[in-house]
C-alpha cells in the first residue's frame, strides 16, 4: 500500500525521531509513504489566529499537490497538521468566503484543490487498513511487563473525530496491547498538553503538562505513548521547569511508532530514542 505523506515542519526539527521511527515501521508493515514534493507549512494554529483564509491557502497548496499524486489518501503524523488539513477540507466545502479566496490563490499559480483527498493519521491507517493481526505478526520482542499510559492529546480526536471516539478513544490502547504491553487506565488521555502555551505563557502551559505527567506517574505507568510531536516535546522537554515549580514527575514519553519499532526488534538508535531528553529506563528488555 502506498500513501502520500505530509511530515510537517516539526518532524524535520524537534520531532525528528517521530519520522525516524514512523518510516521504518511502516515499511516493515508493507506501507510506503511517499513524501509530498516541496510541501510547505500546514498553517497550524498560529496562522489561524492571524488570518484564517491565508492559513487555509497554505494548507490547500499541500492538498493540491497531494491530489496530483493520485494516491488514495494523504497521511500526516502531526496532530496539528492533521487538524489544519482536515479543517481546511471542511472550510473549502462549507465556507464560500474561504473557498473563494483559496481558489483565487491557487488559481494564480495554476493549482487547484477539490478537497477530495482524505487526510488520515498513521494510527488510523494502522488500525483500519493494516489491522492489529498483521501488526501482531511482526512483533518479535513483545513489550511484556511495560505499563503504558496512552496519550492521544487533543487534535486527532477533536473536533473531527473521524476514526475514534472523541471522548473515549481506544485505538492507541489497542495498539499498545497488540505490542504486548499493559495499558494503564489513564483518565487524561485526551486532555491538552499545554500546546504552544509552554513557550508563550509558561505557567499555564506547563501546568497542563505537569498534570498529565503526574497522573501517569500516579497510575504506575512506565511511560507515556504519544501521537504528536508537540505533545512529545511538552512532556519531554520541560522536566526541569516543572520540577522547579511543582515537583519532579520524570517519565519518558515515546512516540507510538517508537514502541512499535522496539516490538518489531529495531534498535533504539534506529528509532531516534537517543534524542529524547528523559531517557528510557533500561527496564525494557528490548532496550537493554
Amino acid at each position: 500500500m502506498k500513501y502520500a505523506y505530509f511530515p510537517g515542519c516539526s518532524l524535520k526539527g524537534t520531532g525528528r525521531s517521530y519520522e525516524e521511527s514512523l518510516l521504518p515501521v511502516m515499511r516493515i508493515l508493507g506501507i510506503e509513504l511517499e513524501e509530498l514534493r516541496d510541501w510547505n507549512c500546514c498553517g497550524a494554529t498560529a496562522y489561524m489566529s492571524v488570518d484564517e483564509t491565508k492559513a487555509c491557502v497554505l494548507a490547500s497548496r499541500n492538498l493540491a499537490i497531494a491530489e496530483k499524486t493520485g494516491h488514495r489518501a494523504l497521511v500526516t503524523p502531526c496532530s496539528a497538521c492533521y487538524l489544519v488539513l482536515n479543517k481546511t477540507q471542511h472550510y473549502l466545502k462549507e465556507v464560500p468566503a474561504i473557498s473563494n479566496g483559496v481558489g483565487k490563490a491557487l488559481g494564480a499559480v495554476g493549482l487547484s484543490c477539490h478537497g477530495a483527498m482524505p487526510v488520515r493519521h498513521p494510527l488510523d491507517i494502522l488500525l483500519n487498513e493494516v489491522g492489529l493481526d498483521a501488526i501482531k505478526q511482526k512483533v518479535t520482542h513483545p513489550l511484556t511487563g511495560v505499563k503504558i499510559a496512552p496519550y492521544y492529546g487533543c487534535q486527532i480526536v477533536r473536533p473531527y473525530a473521524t476514526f475514534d471516539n472523541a471522548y473515549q478513544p481506544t485505538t492507541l490502547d489497542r495498539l499498545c496491547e497488540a505490542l504486548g504491553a499493559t495499558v494503564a487506565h489513564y483518565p487524561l488521555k485526551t486532555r491538552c498538553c499545554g500546546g504552544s502555551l509552554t513557550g508563550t505563557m509558561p505557567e499555564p502551559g506547563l501546568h497542563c503538562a505537569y498534570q498529565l505527567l503526574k497522573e501517569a506517574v500516579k497510575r504506575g505507568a512506565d511511560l507515556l505513548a504519544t501521537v504528536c510531536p508537540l505533545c512529545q516535546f511538552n512532556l519531554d522537554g520541560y522536566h526541569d521547569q516543572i520540577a522547579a515549580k511543582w515537583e519532579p514527575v520524570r517519565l519518558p514519553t515515546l512516540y507510538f511508532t517508537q514502541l512499535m519499532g522496539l516490538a518489531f526488534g529495531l534498535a533504539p538508535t534506529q528509532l531516534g530514542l537517543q534524542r529524547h531528553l528523559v531517557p528510557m529506563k533500561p527496564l525494557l528488555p528490548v532496550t537493554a
Partner: protein
Amino acid sequence: MIEYTRVIKHETDRVPGFGAEVMRAPGCEKLASCIQCGTCSGVCPVSIYMDFTPRQIMALTRADFKDDVLRSRTIWLCVSCYACTTECPRKIRITDIIYELKQRAIQSGYYPEHFAVPVLAREFTDMARANGRITESLLVMRMYLKTNWLAALGMWRLGLKLMSTGRFSYTPEKIEGRAELEKMFAAIDTPIPDYSPSGAPGEETKGTQP
C-alpha cells in the same frame, strides 16, 4: 488603604454590532444559541488561569462588549484543544470563535507590547510566508528576542539539550516554491481592515501583560 474600583457597564461600553460581526465569521454562526451553561469553562484545561471564562467570553462577545473581550487574557490562553467545542450542548465552535477574536485583537493591536502569543503568531506567519516552512528553533528564538530576551536566557539549558540531541536546527528550512507561494498570497492580499475600537487601546492595556 483600600483601593476602590467601580464597575458598572453603561451602553457606551458596548460596541454595537461587534457580536453580530463575529457571528458572521466562519464557524462562529452558532454563538447566538449559547445558553450560558458553562460546560466550556468547566472542560477547558486553562480556564483556571483566565480572567474571563470561555462562557463569559461568549456572553460578552454576544453582548457587544468588544473592549473587554479583546483585551482579555482568555483569548491568548486558549490552547486550541477543542475540548469546549466538542462538549458544547449547542454545538457552538468556541475554539473558532476565540480564533476569530484573536484575529481581531491582532488586527487592531489590542494586546500588550512584548506579549508573546501574538508575537509568536506574527513571527510564525512571516516565516511561513517567507520560507514556506517553519524552523521551530529559529522561530522560538525570534519570539524570545521580541518579547522577553531575559526569559530566553532561562531556557539555555533546554536549548543546549536540544542541540546535543540533534533536535535544534541552525539553518532555516525553505521550500523551492517560495515564489509560487508569494504569488498565491499576493493574489488575495487585502489591506487589513481597520477594527480600531472607539477608544483605541490606551496606556492601561500596555501595562497588563498577562
